[in-house]
């Protein structure tokens, strides 16, 4: 059973990620991680007649691929933790309704992949089932529609804005004596430093990322140098710069260990994505396409996966509220815990 120190839960029974799948669309296929994806569509409608259906399809395909790679069927899953950015988590609900697997819908904005992964790991750790899945998605077009302007509207994007990733990632956790193992989980708190610009999400999320990292390092007694990579979800360039600066000021410099999924998935110079990628499909697809395989192959030994979310409600922001941020952390490792 997990051991709690401060805000961090250390997992003793070594739950592991047994299978995963990542899917994306055109913009992702032009990015540096294209080759790592399991499936990429040239057409961002994925052959569906609405953007929302296209996003559902992303989830459906991601979980299908993860099941197939693990030689599993939906019946082998005891629970699925899923979420997305749309109202009522509709992509997850419509995307996964045919599976017939017990379903928990989560909302943590762009932090949802770390949230669902953490829940799935704790579910296995607690012995509540043999296998649990974590999945999230986002779609540029459905997100723009809900949060910003119509696609064909002629406006300019600000340099701090980020490009919502059209993609999904699914991870299945279970017990298998093979890496990547989940070693620890730190659930983030809601941090609000008063950012009100909905086009500067990175700045809204960076303080939350710093807060969660601070707690994890305090609870674990470890330091950034103990990890090969600290991967934040979608801080983009602005948020990443802020996070590094804050950590440096607090005497815990990240020493080149930090990278951001939003900066890994696109080539900012070439792809006109302004400050980088975002969305819960961003950290999910980078995790399942690139980070988990790297852990499995041994290229990464210890990884802090920390997806960050801007908990923005368009209504609240229009009423003058600021944007709270959150960051959940999952420590993934080649070595099992509990020794």
């Amino acid at each position: 059973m997990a051991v709690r120190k401060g805000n961090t839960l250390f997992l003793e029974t070594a739950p592991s990620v047994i299978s995963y799948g990542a899917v994306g669309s055109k913009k992702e296929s032009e990015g540096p991680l294209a080759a790592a994806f399991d499936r990429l569509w040239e057409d961002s409608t994925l052959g569906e007649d609405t953007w929302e259906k296209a996003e559902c399809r992303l989830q459906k395909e991601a979980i299908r691929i993860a099941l197939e790679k693990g030689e599993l069927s939906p019946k082998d899953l005891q629970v699925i933790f899923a979420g997305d950015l749309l109202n009522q988590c509709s992509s997850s609900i419509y995307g996964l309704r045919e599976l017939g697997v017990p379903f928990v819908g989560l909302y943590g904005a762009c932090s949802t992949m770390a949230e669902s992964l953490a829940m799935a790991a704790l579910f296995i750790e607690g012995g509540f089932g043999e296998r649990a899945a974590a999945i999230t998605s986002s779609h540029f077009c459905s997100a723009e529609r809900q949060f910003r302007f119509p696609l064909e509207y002629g406006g300019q994007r600000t340099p701090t804005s980020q490009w919502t990733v059209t993609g999904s990632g699914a991870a299945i956790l279970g017990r298998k004596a093979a890496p990547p193992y989940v070693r620890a989980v730190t659930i983030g708190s809601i941090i609000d430093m008063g950012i009100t610009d909905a086009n500067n999400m990175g700045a809204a999320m960076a303080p939350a990322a710093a807060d969660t990292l601070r707690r994890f390092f305090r609870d674990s007694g470890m330091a950034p140098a103990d990890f090969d990579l600290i991967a934040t979800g979608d801080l983009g360039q602005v948020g990443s710069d802020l996070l590094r600066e804050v950590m440096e000021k607090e005497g815990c410099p990240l020493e080149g260990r930090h990278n951001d999924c939003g900066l890994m998935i696109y080539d900012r110079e070439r792809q006109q994505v302004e400050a980088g990628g975002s969305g819960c499909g961003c950290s999910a697809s980078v995790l399942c396409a690139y980070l988990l395989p790297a852990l499995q192959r041994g290229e990464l030994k210890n990884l802090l996966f920390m997806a960050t979310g801007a908990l923005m409600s368009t209504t609240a922001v229009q009423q003058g509220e600021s944007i709270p941020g959150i960051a959940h952390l999952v420590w993934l490792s080649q070595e099992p815990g509990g020794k």
Partner: protein
Amino acid sequence: MTKKASPNTKSWRNIPLAFLIGGLICTLGQGLTEFYRSQGLPKDEASTWASVSLVFLSALLTGMKVYDNIAKYGGAGTLVPITGFANAVVSPAMEFKSEGFVLGLGAKMFVIAGPVIVYGITAAVIYGLILFFMGAF
């Protein structure tokens, strides 16, 4: 700290581009006016037809998914002329067609342009009243 880390809009690039593309649209409008006049239309009718043509072209380019690509570079240059307004009406109409013709297209068509119309008309009424009373003295 946030301000320092957040890059500003590239004004040195955006302002001249807006000037250039906005100017081009206006030149096109003037060209159209001249064309209609050469066809024998009186001056104010010719400029009305020029406006109608520009609105049509902008709506068509929005429908062909070209307008937003021009606007990416043109910025305020494509926003300010009458073409920007047409784009602001057509783009949500296209986007929300998936929710049906009444609750989608019909209801959402003016989400961006609506406020402009409301306050435009209000301002027109206020100025009209001022002019009316000033004329009375």
